[in-house]
């Protein structure tokens, strides 16, 4: 049963990710990315990380992608946009980056042994919270400072235009 759900969710995630990068219409791209995020959340839930699944939907599918959609609609981009011819440098750089990422993924898939049952967090928000304010407190605070800096930066950029 779980295996069936996994294969369906994974297949839909891959297909919609492909649509997200290949379709001409920007709105369809954004929406298929939403579907991808949703399917990834389903896989998180299957792994028992239900907190992560809910956070994934809440943050990515629910908040960030809505902003994307908002921008796409406000810019009112023509739905059938001719793709500009990429420069040679772009092609080479893109291929190189794709190769590095692919090799890394392949390495992880082959070399790293995942031992099941090491961290039975059970989607438990309490355990996650203890980890965040316990062993990972420094990183946690660092990220909040980073977010604050981004916030201030955004404000400065907006103010400069006026």
């Amino acid at each position, binding site marked *: 049963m779980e295996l069936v759900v996994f294969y369906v969710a994974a297949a839909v995630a891959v297909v919609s990710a492909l649509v997200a990068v290949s379709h001409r219409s920007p709105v369809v791209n954004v*929406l298929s990315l939403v579907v991808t995020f949703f399917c990834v959340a389903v896989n998180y839930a299957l792994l028992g990380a*239900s907190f992560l699944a*809910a956070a994934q939907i*809440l943050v990515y*599918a629910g908040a960030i992608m809505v902003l994307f959609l908002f921008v796409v*609609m406000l810019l009112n981009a023509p739905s059938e946009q001719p793709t500009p011819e990429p420069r040679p440098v772009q092609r080479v750089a893109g291929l190189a980056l794709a190769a590095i990422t692919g090799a890394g993924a392949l390495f992880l898939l082959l070399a790293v042994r995942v031992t099941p049952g090491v961290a039975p967090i059970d989607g438990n928000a309490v355990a996650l919270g203890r980890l965040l304010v316990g062993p990972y407190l420094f990183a946690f605070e660092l990220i909040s400072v980073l977010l604050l800096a981004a916030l201030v930066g955004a404000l400065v950029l907006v103010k400069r235009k006026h």
Partner: protein
Amino acid sequence: MWAELAVTTAKVVVVALAMVTTVPIMVWVERRGAAFIQDRLGPNRVGPLGLFQPVIDVVKLIFKEDVTPAAANKGLYYLAPLISLGVAMVTFIVIPFGAGHDVSLFGVPLRGLIVAPDLNVGVLYLLAIGSLSVYGIVLAGWSSNNKYSLLGGLRSSAQLISYELAMTLAVLGVLMATGSLHLSDVVARQSGAVWHWNAVTQVIGFAVFLVAAFAETNRLPFDLAEAETELVAGYHVEYSSMKFACFFMAEYLNMATASALTVTLFFGGGTLPGVTLTGWLGLFVSTAVFVAKMCFFLWLFVWVRWSLPRFRYDQLMQLGWKGLLPLATLNLVWVGIAMTMGWLR
């Protein structure tokens, strides 16, 4: 296995039917209530007190012509009402509508009148799925290929994003005090006395949540998406027949869910202070108490709609970002202090 499946199915059927039945009843209450507030009679011809009016309305909606604009984006135009209704139909499964932890059905413990008692993210699930409802509105506005729909859809999505933040922060105060994401734990903590209710201990959080709930359900005074004087009918101008009915049902279902959530988070859910009942009697009484509390908030939605004028768009954004968000943060600080000092039990 089969008995558990049967129990869950029974709970799904009971809860979903009850929620869907709220829609025609609320349509009737809204029309009669509006008439009452405006000193007229309202629909009173079909059945006693006009109670069968919603049935006739449904028949009318089914037989209406189903129009699709020629320039619409067909796929998304059909998808949008389904997203709205689909999201509204699955959010309420984490709400505990009644007690009944000591009741068993077919030899399986019932674990309360809540569809998904094992979902350990609880209210976070509701917020996450609820945040997807923006897509229904924004896609309806965009795919209709109509400037009024588009403006309505954009306004509405901006409004939902802004108020979601304040709402989530208000919920966070309750969750902090409870120390659990399970809504049944939230209810259990508020049992015993009226001053244990979160509406009393977190007045500011409750006020923020209530205002944000009005904005999230797109109701007056925040129904800018369908400001008919300037935008005709907002994001669903081009929709007719049952596709329009999908948006209509979703709005009333969201209203019912928001009322149920308010009762659960801030008004002690199905508990009655000073009364402790067990077994089936406890289940029935607590469900009745829950429904009674919920009815008050459903009426409040109608009451406010026909009493207050609509906000202007910039006023709405100002209220959300400069009013509610700081207030919700203040509530969080208060809960933190009160918990450290041991004022909250």
